[in-house]
Structure formats: structure tokens, C-alpha cells
């Protein structure tokens, strides 16, 4: 049984309830606890789909676009990776975005397949 099943959904109007997250490309879904970022929720459940890097808004690998629903920005997002125009269109970093409603997101960030990584990376090169 999912631990989130025990969270009373009607606790308070001010408390954000757990929100379900759907990744558009893979159809993967998971639940973020109240206040958790998209990336924290995924990591906590041992799920995959969004690339994970610094988890602190600086490296840009977790870049996503929120297609449906609403997220709260919970920290600085590097302008090197998300421009103001992109942000206005719902693009953000999954490690800095806490869902406020059920959301559907498109994963934009990709692990750059750097030359070193092609040689030493443990997995097959992803498309």
C-alpha cells in the first residue's frame, strides 16, 4: 500500500495534497508528497524518467516542461539552462518545482552524451 494513502486529503485548505506526476514521454506516473519537488518525489520512490544531477537548480539536466497542472518554484533556477521566456512557457527544473496539482510534464533535459561518457559510461548510449 502506498504511504500516501494514509494522508488525509481534507486536512486543511492550506495544505497541498499529494499530487500525481505523469511523464509524457514514458507514461510513467508517481506521487509527490506535499511540498516535494518533482525530482525528490521520483528519487524517493526509486523511479526513473527525469535525468538527475545536482538536485540544486544549477546543472540543468532535469529540465522539464509542465504541460498540465501547476508547480510552485521552490528555489533558484539557473538562467543558463532556463531562460525567462522559457520559464513563462512553463519550462523549469524538476528539482526546483513542487507540484500544486496533479501534473503532466515533458522531459526536456537529456544527459549530454559527452565524449568521455561514450567511452566510460556504464549504460548504452540513450537516444
Amino acid at each position, binding site marked *: 500500500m502506498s504511504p500516501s494513502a494514509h494522508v488525509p486529503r481534507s486536512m486543511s485548505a492550506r495544505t497541498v495534497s499529494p499530487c500525481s506526476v505523469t511523464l509524457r514521454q514514458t507514461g510513467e506516473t508517481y506521487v509527490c508528497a506535499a511540498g516535494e519537488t518533482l525530482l525528490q518525489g521520483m528519487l524517493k520512490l526509486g523511479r526513473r524518467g527525469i535525468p*538527475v*544531477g*545536482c*538536485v*540544486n*537548480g*544549477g*546543472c540543468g*539536466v532535469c529540465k522539464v516542461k509542465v504541460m498540465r497542472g501547476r508547480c510552485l518554484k521552490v*528555489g*533558484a533556477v*539557473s*538562467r*543558463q*539552462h532556463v531562460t525567462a521566456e522559457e520559464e513563462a512557457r512553463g519550462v523549469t527544473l524538476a528539482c526546483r518545482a513542487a507540484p500544486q496539482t496533479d501534473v503532466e510534464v515533458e522531459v526536456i533535459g537529456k*544527459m*549530454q*552524451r*559527452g*565524449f*568521455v*561518457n561514450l*567511452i*566510460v*559510461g*556504464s*549504460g548504452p548510449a540513450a537516444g
Partner: protein
Amino acid sequence: MGVMRIGHASIKVMDMAVAVKHYENVIGMKVVHTDPNGNVYLKCWDEWDKYSLILSPSDRAGLNHVAYKVEHDADLDVLQQRIETYGSKTEMLPVATLPFVGRMLKFNLPSGHEMRLFQQKEVVGTDVGSTNPDPWPDGLKGAGAHWLDHCLLMCPLDPEKGINTVADNCKFMKEVLGFHLSEQAVVGPGGSIQIAAFLFCTTKPHDIAFVGAPTMGLHHVSFFLDSWADILKAGDVMAKNRVKIDVAPTRHGITRGETIYFFDPSGNRNETFAGLGYLAQPDRPVTTWTEDSIGRGIFYHHGEATESFTTVYT
């Protein structure tokens, strides 16, 4: 004569208050100065110059510049000549461009990274002083790092287009700045492509390192600890402080160093690095890591580089 050691790194942070807390409580540095633009200057206890880290407020993460210290003031003129002759532009920044620092020679490495050389920085002494000193001071916080040890820069590399700024940087550091190559990683036919280079100007295995990447960036700044026990304690400090650890305690084949990689609150990668490794000397044969063993070179026990380690940087 020439370059002695790393002097400081200037890095961008997106939230100054949490950045300062991280470098104080996790690394164990002390704030020594804040300038009117909000830049914060920090020092490790075993360093004698005024500071080794500048945190500058920004809307992004990454490196502003890295600075190395030369022995004599006249070295700056000699090296300026040499760099210009090599074909790179230079600029001599006047005294006090940075607080407590004399004139600085500014230029870009072939990879594009800004480097500066200086000779004067206010000397304030280590936290144990120079007269009958204790081996360590009381009141150390966090990992209690001794000093800023080295940095690793991500350098544009695209063999298909004939671009290899790892090799270009390596040549520049050797021929112009008098560094020596201690270790390298090579790939391709006959090991013809140098994808990583580790260079020294002290007697440690490295004072700077270059690794190939799609774009220019900062891979990490590294702080020195004495021993494996200190590395494990640093890991505890990180766990206590909920720091995002990238690579848990392990050993590098390259340099023999013991290590933890982790991220500061803006996503800049840090390393705590222990062990002096071996005596690095100009006549020591260069260690080469071949294509089939690069994973062991990077992380000796696991034998594979993790994906985030090779692809995530600021």
C-alpha cells in the same frame, strides 16, 4: 620562479546565504570579507593567504575564474610575454581589482576558461600560526578542510571536428606556464586522443585537471583532507547537512586520491580529496590510462564512472 600553486577560485552562486552556510558548515571555511557588490570571500584554516574562495551572486552556477599564485612579481611580466608570444591575449588588472590582491594577469585558456595569475595577496597566517603551532586548531566546523587543492575544468572536445581543448590546455600549461603532466587518459586509434589531463606545479599529483566535454564548464573545486578517516567523517557531515552526494567515499586510480563528490546549494560540484598520493616530479614518467581502463582510473573500486559524474557540471 613561476607558478607556485592554486590561489583561489571565483564561483557563481544563486542564493548567497545558503551558499555561505554550505562552505562554512560543510567544508569548514571561514568568511573573511564581504565586498560592496555582495561577493563573499572565504578561507580554509591551513591556508596562510587571505582567501581561497570567492562566492559571487548570480542567476546561475559555474566558474568565473580560477587564479594561481606566482613566486615573484616579475614572473607576471615574463609570463605575460610568453602568453602573448604563444598567441593568447592578456590583460594586466591593476592592484586591488580584487580586495587584498596585487596586480593580476588575466587571460583565457585554449578551452575558454578565464585564468588569472597574481603574486601578492595579504598574508594572514594559518589558524594555528607559525610559532610552536598545534597540528590543528580548535573549533573547526564540518569537514575542516585544510586548503583549496585543485579544480577540474570541462573542456570542449569534438574529435570529429578536430577540436581537443584538453590537449590544447595541456600543451599551454606545460609550454607556457611551466606545469608538468602527471597522468592522462587517452582513447581512439593508438591512444591518439587525450581526453583527460592532470597537471601539477607543486609536488602533488595535480593542481589542475582537464576533461573533455561538449561545452566549457566547471566540473569541481576540490578541498584537501588528510586521510581516509577524514573523508568518512566528511561524508557524515554531508549526511547531517542533507548535502546531495554525487559519488560516495571511494578512491581514484588516477592520483590515488580518496574522494567524495557532492554539490553545493547552487549545483556546483565540490570534492573532498585526501592523500598526497605520490611525489610528483618533472622527471616522473607520465601515467597513462587507456580506453579499457578509464573507469578504473576514475573510480578504482567500482571500475565505472557513474553517468552523472561524466555528464553533469556547471
